[in-house]
């Protein structure tokens, strides 16, 4: 079957249409999976609850019901809001998420666009969401949303830097910016001459992995980095004035971004779609690749959400100090050591 899949040759417009459909379907699906598995189930278990039970088998359809609820709600726009910007903001945020899905390889060929500067592109488009959030906060004409948006902007800029710097370590080691290339570098690597397991970069770049995960947590504005949406003080930050399907957009964007960031982390540090024992160019990856990648994403996501459900919120000054005083120097040190070791070996 895998050979059949590999031998299919489609015209450019057919490929593009398929890719468009896949990405637009992936974003809500992955957001749903994450919402149900982590936000509902794992969170409940960690709080000694069972989670939703009534909707569907074991409450698994609860999020679909919630989504339907959001869609049927009234679409409220504040009187003094900047209507055009207010309406565009959720789309901009969701757009940044959609663009992130473009470069995530589920196998060597199962990728929407295998850019040579893949990881650079990912980091660039992930910061587009800051603009969307600022637009949402500003156009709502509400002081809470404005404070939330400013906090979000400050936080996302502060944590963009350690994220980029953490990725630099991986890029130095792999010698390429392409995500496919990084996976290939891990598959072809060796640990002290032992090459059966390849060289997942989490072994050499564990500092980078830690910094990347911390930065991802902050990019997603999840606890403990949820100052911008702090419910107890800002009633929801930049999302205050959004209701109905516009709020649903923010929700989808948050969880779909969590998925794709977990995917990037899995690709950069855990070997992505590659699994030891199967050659990276093998045709089996047409089927095996997405499964392996999904498994790795779930593992990484479990860590992200585990941290989310454990720690209380950072104070604003602690949040900034953590990025500027700890993560960035640590990341620079990591780059230095990686560079030196790269030259030595």
């Amino acid at each position, binding site marked *: 079957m895998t050979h059949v899949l590999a031998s299919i040759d489609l015209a450019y417009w057919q490929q593009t249409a398929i890719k468009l459909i896949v990405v637009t379907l992936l974003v809500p699906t992955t957001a749903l999976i994450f919402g149900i598995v982590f936000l509902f189930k794992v969170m409940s278990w960690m709080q*000694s609850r069972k989670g939703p039970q009534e909707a569907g088998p074991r409450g698994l359809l609860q999020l679909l019901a919630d989504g339907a609820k959001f869609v049927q709600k009234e679409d409220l726009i504040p009187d003094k809001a900047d209507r055009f910007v207010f309406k565009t903001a959720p789309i901009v945020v969701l757009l940044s998420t959609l663009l992130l899905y473009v470069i995530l390889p589920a196998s060597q060929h199962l990728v929407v666009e295998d850019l040579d500067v893949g990881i650079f592109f990912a980091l660039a488009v992930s910061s587009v969401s800051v603009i969307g959030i600022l637009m949402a906060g500003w156009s709502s004409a509400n002081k809470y949303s404005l404070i939330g948006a400013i906090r979000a902007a400050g936080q996302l800029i502060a944590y963009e830097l350690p994220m980029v710097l953490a990725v630099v370590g991986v890029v130095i080691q792999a010698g390429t910016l392409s995500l496919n290339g990084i996976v290939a570098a891990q598959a072809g690597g060796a640990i002290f001459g032992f090459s059966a397991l390849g060289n997942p970069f989490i072994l050499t770049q564990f500092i980078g992995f830690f910094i990347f995960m911390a930065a991802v947590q902050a990019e997603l504005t999840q606890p403990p980095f949820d100052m911008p949406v702090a419910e107890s003080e800002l009633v929801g930050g930049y999302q205050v004035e959004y209701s109905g399907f516009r709020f649903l957009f923010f929700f989808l964007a948050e969880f779909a971004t969590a998925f794709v960031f977990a995917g990037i982390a899995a690709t950069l540090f855990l070997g992505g779609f590659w699994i030891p024992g199967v050659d990276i160019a093998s045709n089996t990856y047409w089927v095996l690749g997405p499964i392996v990648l999904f498994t790795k994403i779930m593992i990484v996501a479990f860590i992200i959400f585990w941290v989310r459900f*454990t720690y209380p919120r950072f104070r604003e000054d602690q949040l900034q100090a953590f990025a500027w005083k700890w993560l960035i120097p640590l990341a620079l040190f990591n780059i230095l050591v990686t560079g030196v070791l790269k030259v030595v070996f």
Partner: protein
Amino acid sequence: MPRVPGLIKGLGVTFGEMVKTLKPDSRGGGPVTVDYPHVKEDPAPRARGVIALHEENCTACMLCSRECPDWCIYIEAHKYLAPPRREGGKPRKKNALDRFDIDYSLCMYCGICVEVCPFDALFWSPEYEYSEPRIADLLHDKSRLGEWMTTVPDFEPYEAGSEQKVKKVPS
């Protein structure tokens, strides 16, 4: 840096809680919650759910009604002459309860009526499922209050050091 061990310990706590919740009940696991509409939680001792009336004990003395801070107890009664206990005696004057209503939309569950009742006619019941779509329907009459008598649990001894006052629950 000194905070790091605490952070890891915190992760351990949440993970341990998850493992405990997922373990089957038979092995000491399971969540702390219950599937509420299907399974009801055991009420706490002396839970204040609703006030039940044991009508036979009520003499319509009006003490509860007058002590009620919300004035949510409505009592109406009439006097009648009961036959004398012994041959040739005077007929006894007795109070017959016509109406004993508690308006639970006003009641604040302070329990003063239960405390002041000198004839042990009012009791706390742990029953709590008596919500109504219309607020006026929360006015419950004596037959409804009497039904709740069946849910009143036996008296449980107070904790050590508390006031010793034992109330008899009519069986």
